[in-house]
C-alpha cells in the first residue's frame, strides 16, 4: 500500500512478504527485513538492522498511528484512484491539524498561491498557527469562515492544480 506520513510529508510504498519468522518488506524499491515478536501488552518488538525497539500501531478513522520507540508517525493510506493523483496535488485538501478557531483567512477562492504561502490562521490553546500551501495551486473552495470553531481534520481549504482551472 502507498502511504503519506503526515508530519514529514514523506510518501512511501510498502509491500510485505513472509519469510519464515521475519517479514521482508519492499519499500521504495529497496528491500528491508524485520523480525517481530508480539508482546503481551499488545506492542511488538521489532528488529530492523541493528535496531531492536518496542513498537505499536493502531488504525484510527482514516489514518494509522505508529510508534517506533519514542518516534510517533501518522500514516494516511493513499488510494491511487482518488483525488490525490487525479488532481495532481500531493494533498488537495488543507485540513485543521487540531480543533480550534479560524482566526484569519488569508486567501480568496480563485487565488493562485505559491509553495509556502500562508493560507489561513487558526487559534488553538491561545496560540496562533498559520497553515501554508505545500505547493503551487489554485484556491478552489473555502468552506469555513473567520471566527468559526472547527474540529481536528475539518476541511479548511480545497485546492486545485494550477493548470486545471485555467481556461
Amino acid at each position: 500500500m502507498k502511504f503519506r506520513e503526515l508530519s514529514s510529508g514523506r510518501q512511501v510504498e510498502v509491500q510485505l512478504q513472509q519469510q519464515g519468522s521475519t517479514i521482508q518488506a519492499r519499500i521504495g524499491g529497496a528491500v528491508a527485513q524485520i523480525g517481530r515478536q508480539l508482546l503481551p501488552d499488545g506492542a511488538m518488538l521489532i528488529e530492523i538492522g541493528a535496531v531492536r525497539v518496542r513498537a505499536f500501531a493502531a488504525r484510527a478513522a482514516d489514518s494509522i498511528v505508529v510508534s517506533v520507540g519514542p518516534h510517533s508517525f501518522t500514516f494516511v493510506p493513499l488510494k491511487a484512484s482518488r483525488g490525490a493523483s487525479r488532481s495532481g496535488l500531493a494533498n488537495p485538501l488543507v485540513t485543521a491539524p487540531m480543533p480550534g478557531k479560524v482566526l484569519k483567512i488569508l486567501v480568496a477562492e480563485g487565488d493562485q498561491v505559491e509553495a509556502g504561502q500562508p493560507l489561513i490562521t487558526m487559534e488553538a490553546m491561545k496560540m496562533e498557527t498559520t497553515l501554508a500551501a505545500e505547493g503551487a495551486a489554485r484556491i478552489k473552495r473555502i468552506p469555513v469562515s473567520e471566527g468559526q470553531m472547527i474540529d481536528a481534520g475539518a476541511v479548511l481549504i480545497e485546492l486545485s492544480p494550477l493548470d486545471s482551472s485555467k481556461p
Partner: protein
Amino acid sequence: MPRFRTRRINKLLIANRGEIALRIIRTARALGLHTIAVYSEADADSPHLAAAHEAHLIGPAEARHSYLNIQSILDAARAAGADAIHPGYGFLSESPEFARAVDQAGLIFVGPPPQVLAAAGDKVGARQLAQRAGVPVVPGTETADAATARSFAVLTGYPILIKAAAGGGGRGMRVVHDESALDAALQAAGREAQAAFSDGRLFLEKYLTAPRHIEVQILGDAHGRVIAMGERECSLQRRHQKIVEESPAPAISAQMRATIIDAAATLAAAVGYQNAGTVEFLVDGDNFYFLEINARLQVEHPVTELRFDYDLVAAQLAIAARQPLIEPPPPRGHAIECRVYAEDAHNDFRPAGGSVLYLQLPAGPGIRVDTWLAPAIEIGTHYDGLLAKVIAYGADRDEARRRMLAALDEFVLTGVTHTAAFLRDLIASEGFARGEFSTTFVSEFLPDWRPSDETFKAAAILAELAAQSGTAAPARRWNGAGAVSRRRSPWEALGDFSLWSRR
C-alpha cells in the same frame, strides 16, 4: 528557637490540572492532607480526579469558565471545606486578584501574597525594581504603541522583542526583524496577550540574538527569610517556551554563577518575596540581565528538587502555614529535565491531540517522570500540551545525560504526536553534550532533524501490517471510558499472523 504563630492546613484544594495537579496531590497526600481536585468538563476522565480524595466540577472546557474562574473555584473550596488552595503553575497561579479572593474567603493561598504577585506580574514594574536594586536589565521601553516601537527600534536597531506586560510562557511574545513586520507583530502580540491574560498591554526589549537563559530558584518565608537555591539553565526553547532544563548550568564561570544567584536573592529580598518563585536572567557573553520574576512554582522545579533532595511543594505548604523555612541540604550531582509535549516537531511544534492507545513510561535509577498520561485518556487541545516531564539525575552531567537518553528511548506513546524522539536526538547531539548552546540551539538543530531511515521504514512496515490486520475500528472506539479492557491489539486479528504464516 523562636516560636511562630503558624496556621494549619488540613484540606488542600489544587486549582489546576494535568501533571502539576498530580505532582501537588502526591506531596499533599504524603503529608497526610485531604486533597480536593477540581476539573472542567473536558477533564472528566483526567487522572488527577482519581488521585485526589474528592473532585469537583468547576465549569466547561474553556479555561476562563473553569480553571480561570475564581468564583467557581472558591465555590468548590467552600463546598469541600478546603482551608488552603494551591494554584500550581499557569492559570490563576500568578493572579493577585485570585490570591486576594482566596484570602478574603478566609482560606490560605499557597503562593506569594497578592502585593508580591502584583509586583512580580507587572513586568514593567519589575524591570524598574531590578534597576533600583542595582541589577542590570535588557534595554527596553515601558509601553509599545507603534510610534514608541519605531523610535525604540531606531535607537537600538532591529531585532526587537515585543512582550506582554502581564505575560509569561512566551505568549504574546514576538520578535520583529524589520520595520515592515512591526505593525502586524504588535497586533498579533496584543491579540494573543489579550486572549491569554485578559490584558493586551505590551512593552519592548532589545532582542538579544543568542543569549543563554538562566534562572534561579528562590524561597522566602513569612518571617522575612529569603534564600536562593541554585540556578537552572533553560536555554533550550521553542516558541520562547522551555523544553529542556538542567542544573547546574554548564559552561558558565563560577563567578557568573555566584553573581546571578546573589542578584536573585537581592531582588527577592527587595520585593519581600514569600513562598517559591524564580528569578529569570539572560546571559550574553560576560553580561547578564534581569528578565522577570515568576511568582509561582515553575514547571522545571523537579530539576532543583533532585539536585537539592528537597520537596519544593512541601516547602510551599510549610511556608503558607507560616512555618519557618527549612534550610535545604547542599546541592550535589546534576539534573536534566525534558518536557514531552503533544506537538509535531516536524511542523513548527504544532499542537496535537488524540487518545492514548499505548503507553510505556521510562523508569530506573535517577529517573523521575512527572506526567498525567494514562492508558486510554483523551489528550485534547484545550490546554497546554505538556504530557510528561522526564527528569534524570546523575552524579555528574554526563551520567544525567546518558540516563536521560536511555529514559527517552523507553518512552513509547501511540495515538498522540509527541516530542520525545526530538528531545532524545537533541540530548544526543554534540552541541548539547558539550553544554555550549544558547536560545537559538533548538531552531538550528530542528531543520536537519528527522528520524533515521531504519526507524521510518520500520514505522511504514508497521503501518502496512496494521492496514492489513482487518481490525479497523473507528477511532472513537478507543476513546470511551473503560475502553482499555475492550481494546484489542491491532495485531490480534492478524491471528498468529495468518497473513504470513500460511504454511
